[in-house]
């Protein structure tokens, strides 16, 4: 065999890869399915069985309960602030990193990844240290009657911090792959900065933007650790959905806890569906659809 040319060796190897014994194929597949069943499907089913344990009526009663409803609204508000902020930040950061050369680019990239590397609890603590009563800013904030920690602003800040890498991380490789040429061409043709962004750059990165926004939103709504530290767990005031679930659970109100949790499970499923749709669109840019958009 050692005397064989490389080509035939590779051919032999390729053939063997295709004729893997059926038993091995089945075994590998079984392990994967079993793993997914135990760690993904089973918990998901459990969430919904628990949620509907006492019937559909009880399920909706749990969601309509005033504190639960407040938690849902606070979560939506937080996401509504954090996601657009991080969209703007992500666009600016990825534009700067992909299109310009400047010293400290590597450091900036590392800093963008920081929230991924830091435990969410620490992220929350940072804001307590910055804006809490014991902090340097504390007395000034108290004098002006501004509440950050144990209030909505703190929750929003912590959420923004935890979710800021999502859009930027998604867009940087996309923008780097696209390069500068189309923007330069647009500039030579007389287009202004905003025209270039909306007519040339954005259409090229729109699916990346959407993908980043979906992931950012899912994390913003589901974040527990960082928000838990800054929220103070005031029922009906500073509880987001994940915090509310925890409280219900700690009170042994399992049915209500899982009913609210099912909302996050729905969000997760919706996110996964949206993510696959976007991924599918990125893989095959269908010209017809874009023509429809222009007509609209």
């Amino acid at each position, binding site marked *: 065999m050692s005397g064989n040319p490389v080509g035939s060796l590779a051919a032999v190897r390729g053939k063997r890869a295709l004729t893997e014994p059926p038993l091995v194929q089945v075994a590998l597949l079984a392990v994967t399915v079993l793993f997914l069943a135990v760690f993904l499907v089973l918990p998901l089913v459990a969430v919904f069985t628990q949620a509907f344990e006492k019937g559909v009526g009880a399920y909706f009663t749990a969601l309509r309960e005033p504190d639960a409803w407040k938690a849902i609204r606070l979560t939506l508000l937080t996401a509504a602030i954090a996601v657009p902020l991080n969209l703007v930040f992500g666009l600016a950061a990825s534009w700067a990193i992909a299109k310009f050369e400047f010293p400290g680019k590597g450091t900036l990239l590392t800093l963008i990844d920081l929230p991924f590397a830091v435990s969410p609890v620490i992220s929350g603590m940072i804001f307590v240290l910055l804006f809490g009563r014991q902090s340097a800013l504390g007395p000034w904030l108290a004098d002006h009657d501004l509440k950050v920690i144990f209030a909505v602003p703190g929750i929003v800040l912590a959420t923004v911090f935890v979710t800021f890498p999502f859009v930027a991380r998604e867009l940087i490789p996309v923008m780097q792959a696209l390069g500068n040429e189309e923007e330069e061409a*647009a500039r030579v043709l007389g287009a202004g900065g905003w025209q270039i962004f909306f*007519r040339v750059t954005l259409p090229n990165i729109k699916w990346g933007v959407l993908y980043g926004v979906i992931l950012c939103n899912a994390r913003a709504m589901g974040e527990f650790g960082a928000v838990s530290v800054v929220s103070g767990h005031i029922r009906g005031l500073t509880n987001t959905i994940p915090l509310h679930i925890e409280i219900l659970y700690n009170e042994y109100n399992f049915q209500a806890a899982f009913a609210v949790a099912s909302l996050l499970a729905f969000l997760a499923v919706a996110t996964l569906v949206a993510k696959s749709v976007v991924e599918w669109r990125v893989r095959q840019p269908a010209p017809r659809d874009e023509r429809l958009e222009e007509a609209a």
Partner: protein
Amino acid sequence: MSIEVRNVTKRFGTFTAVNDVSVTVPAGELVALLGPSGSGKTSLLRIIAGLESPDAGSVFFEGEDQARRDVRVRRVGFVFQHYALFRHMTVFENVAFGLRVRPRGSRPPAAEIRAKVMDLLKLVQLDWLADRRPSELSGGQRQRVALARALAVEPKVLLLDEPFGSLDARIRQELRRWLRRLHDEIRLTSVFVTHDQEEALDVADRVVVMNRGRIAQMGTSQEVFEHPATPFVMTFLGQSAVFSGRVQGGKAFLGPLSVDYPDHVHEDSRPAAGYARPHDLEVTRMENGGGGLWATLRHVSPAGAVVKLELTDPEGGSLQAEVTREQHDALHAREGESLYVKPRKLRIFVQEDDTSDPPDTPRAPRA
């Protein structure tokens, strides 16, 4: 509209891409910036366009300084090396882009834009592809769309960066003849960048040969080809046999060659090198009046309009000669035979002591 580049210098970090370059492009001419990669030709083109700003020097259009004018208002047509077509737009929308982004006041009505774009697409013979996307076109078609798009804004000058660089050889030749005809038709002052000397000599009115950020020579195709100013230009513009040696007392002693050199009558010797194009080498069986050398025939490539001979001189140097088919048949030479090679035309470059760039030759001269 004429273009004048005056004393332009551009540095990227410690690398000087363009070094004190001055060029004038007369109105309506097609000029090639020719040079190896890293010679600064693309940087110079981008400076003319306004895509880069020079560290020193200025660019004038029709005598008007462009330093304070942004690329948006310079009215240049720029064709990028990789076309840079807007991939999410159709061919039509690509060409219409420059008209559609104009401010409301100066933007032509939609019907006018449509008519104009279709005219341009007819000019580049692509009107039947108006609804396609760039990804559905061939390289040559994309190139022509890029050209139509550049022309749509009625530019005052047209700049092309390696316009045929990423096309295959046959399309390349077709397209460059087509570009020449188009230029003859619209007479727009144009500058194109290329590393292909054949392309430059074939298409351009004038050729600017660049090397290491400086201009090595400027002139018509014929001038630079027949009267290269430096060894660099000589070797860059085509293959040549090199004979290194020295000049002394009205004679040049170049390895196996010794010829008269009346330009240098001093008794002190100077290092020099002689260059001969393959088609300027006469190959015979008999010694033909002296001034040549005996070389061994190594290889014959009979395919093509001329027959290429590869020979080795007594000192081991390799020589390329080109003879016509008739000469080759008459010569009837076999590989391994000894033949007499005599340069009909020999360009001798004497190395000056105070020369500013002595290592000007891209390839080391063979001894």
